């Protein structure tokens, strides 16, 4: 019939992308800019444009709940990301050795991820309940003094949430890393075997660097989990005991809606965005520079 010239197909592609570009610019970028603007106003239940300078930010950073939220997010990132990566990598490495029943194992490991964070949170909440959970089972098994009260202990509750999140996300990290491991050249393994390099050394110095892209993907997914952390907290502790397990996303949602403090919530959201940028921009810059150097 007729053959499209490459330029017309490119034009078509560009045209197809126009609506998407429009949505991205107006809804996402526009929405972000608008929220940043609102954070400098006195908006309470409904947005208004009475300028307030940095008042909302001053209120925000003198708010004990916000301080606790930020601290919890930092703690979460520092523990959740490395531990999940370690567990996910170990599971992937194990499966990659060609164990029997790989499919079954993979399904089992990935299963937690198929559950929503709400369900995850509820399950762990019941498991850890000091009166009726695992502690009660242990007592019934004649460990009479068994008690496990982390979830109701203000100092320890955040760790129960981190445990639940690790349980939830390890399977996903495993799948991502397994895909990377499958891409490792057979010859590399053969060379490692011939050279007689110990397994841990081979993984740490040879295999891990060669699946850098998969690890980066897993890191991005986990970082998103950290910033978005909301549902598992709501389901497990509701931010308590007291305000001990509050996180930025919950702080923002509570103040945006229930407390009708749109200005304060926007200031919190803007701060969160800045934090993400402060971490993400240098990372992206480094990644691009490395790509440039490789070329």
């Amino acid at each position, binding site marked *: 019939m007729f053959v499209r010239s490459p330029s017309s197909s490119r034009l078509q592609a560009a045209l197809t992308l126009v609506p998407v570009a429009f949505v991205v610019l107006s809804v996402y970028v526009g929405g972000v800019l608008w929220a940043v603007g609102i954070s400098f106003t006195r908006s*309470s*239940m*409904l947005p208004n444009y009475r300028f307030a300078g940095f008042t909302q930010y001053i209120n925000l950073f003198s708010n*004990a*709940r916000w301080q606790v939220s930020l601290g919890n997010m930092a703690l979460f990132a520092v523990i959740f990301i490395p531990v999940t990566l370690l567990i996910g990598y170990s599971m992937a490495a194990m499966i990659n050795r060609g164990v029997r029943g790989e499919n079954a194992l993979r399904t089992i490991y990935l299963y937690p991820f198929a559950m929503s964070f709400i369900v995850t949170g509820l399950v762990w*909440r019941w498991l850890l*309940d*000091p*009166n*009726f959970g695992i502690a009660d089972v242990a007592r019934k098994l004649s460990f009479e003094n068994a008690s496990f*009260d982390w*979830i*109701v202990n*203000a*100092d320890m*509750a955040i760790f129960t949430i981190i445990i639940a999140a690790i349980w939830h996300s390890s399977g996903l990290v495993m799948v991502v890393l397994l895909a990377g491991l499958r891409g490792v050249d057979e010859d590399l393994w053969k060379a490692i075997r011939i050279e007689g390099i110990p397994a841990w050394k081979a993984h740490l110095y040879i295999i891990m660097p060669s699946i850098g892209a998969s690890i980066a993907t897993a890191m991005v997914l986990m970082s998103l989990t950290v910033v978005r952390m909301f549902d598992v907290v709501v389901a*497990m*502790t*509701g*931010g*308590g*005991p*007291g*305000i*001990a397990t509050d996180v930025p996303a919950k702080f923002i949602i*509570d*103040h945006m*809606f*229930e*407390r*009708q*403090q749109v200005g304060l919530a926007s200031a919190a959201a803007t701060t969160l965005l800045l934090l993400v940028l402060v971490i993400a921009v240098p990372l992206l810059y480094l990644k691009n520079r490395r790509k440039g150097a490789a070329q």
Partner: protein
Amino acid sequence: MISRLLLAATTATALCFAASANAQEIKGEVIHQWTSAAESAGVKVLAQKFTELGGTWVDNAISGGPNARSTAVNRVVGGNPPAAMLFNTGAQFVELQDNGLLRDLTETAKADNWQNKMPAALLNSGVVDGEYWALPISGNGANWFWFNKSILDKIGVAKPKTWDDVFVALDKAKAAGIAPFAPSGEPRWQRLMFNAVVLGVAGRDTYDAVIYKRDASAVRGEKFKAAVKVFEKLRDFADAGTPGRSWPDSTNLVISGKALMTQGGTWLNGAFAAAGKTAGTDYECALINPDQGMVISGDVFLFPEPKNAAMTKAQDLLLKAFADVPTQTAFAVANGTIPILKGADTSKLNPCIAEASRFFNDPKLSTGSDQMMFTPAIVGAVEDAITRFATKGGLTAEQFIEAYAKGLSAS
């Protein structure tokens, strides 16, 4: 082919006509958060009356008050308002009214004589500059304590009336190896309990100064401090599973005889009733130091500024249904709340609700809840302070009093 197209076209036209015929029905969409068994039974009563009057009830039940309210607000701001939406009694509606998003109900209120039909405290929380903006629909008493009767009998204690009585009962239950106190651990119910203690210990004058006048010096006063100490003592009797526990789960512990006492509003009565328990034989309800009165709270319906004549008509019918005395009473009985309209038949009420109803209708024995008087920002700020104090290892009494006093000026 052509005949098939024609057929499709005719069908489409017919459907359009059907749709426009439907549009002439008086559709009233109502957003509310009444989802529990008793609450749904109450909604059914209201919907039935609306249907009788010729309307078509479009039910939009959203679980959780804050969720329902933010959905409703988003719909109103987005220009697609429901005919009516459920809010808590109090200052929540003021900003919507300020921005001209609500329908002025003054005409209906005057014609229907709301002033003589409803308790003033409840009605007036929906009045701004003499104009009516909210229709009260349900009433509750918030500062009740609930006891398992068979445990009371077992430890040989009568239904407590004073704070000393309460602590004697708690001590005896503890000595008998029974969990003495199972409060809810969610922040809003901790706030409710704190208010109950302030009214019951510090007294009506201090309570009103704090809640109605946001008087920070009253918060720093000796009477308030005494209330803080009692709250601290109660907190220390709470069982280990308290943090984060919902009120139905807490009530269940008392119903099933695992704990002696819990705290909560008249809505707890519905949970006891649903479990087949009888007031006076299976459980007891009590206001501690009842001379100081009862904290009343409730829900109101707001009516967004109508978009067209059909919506105005639907709202007129809804207003008629909601303010109808027999309907309102039947609703309250099904819902387990206090009938709010004067002339309601109280003979069918359970003793706890009947007693609450007596306090409710006596202005000397009832005072408003914090949500009725505080803006949501202040409610949130004092709630944060209270939940931090209610947590073991959290704020000290002095730090808490300062945080509460500061919270009164949050915005």
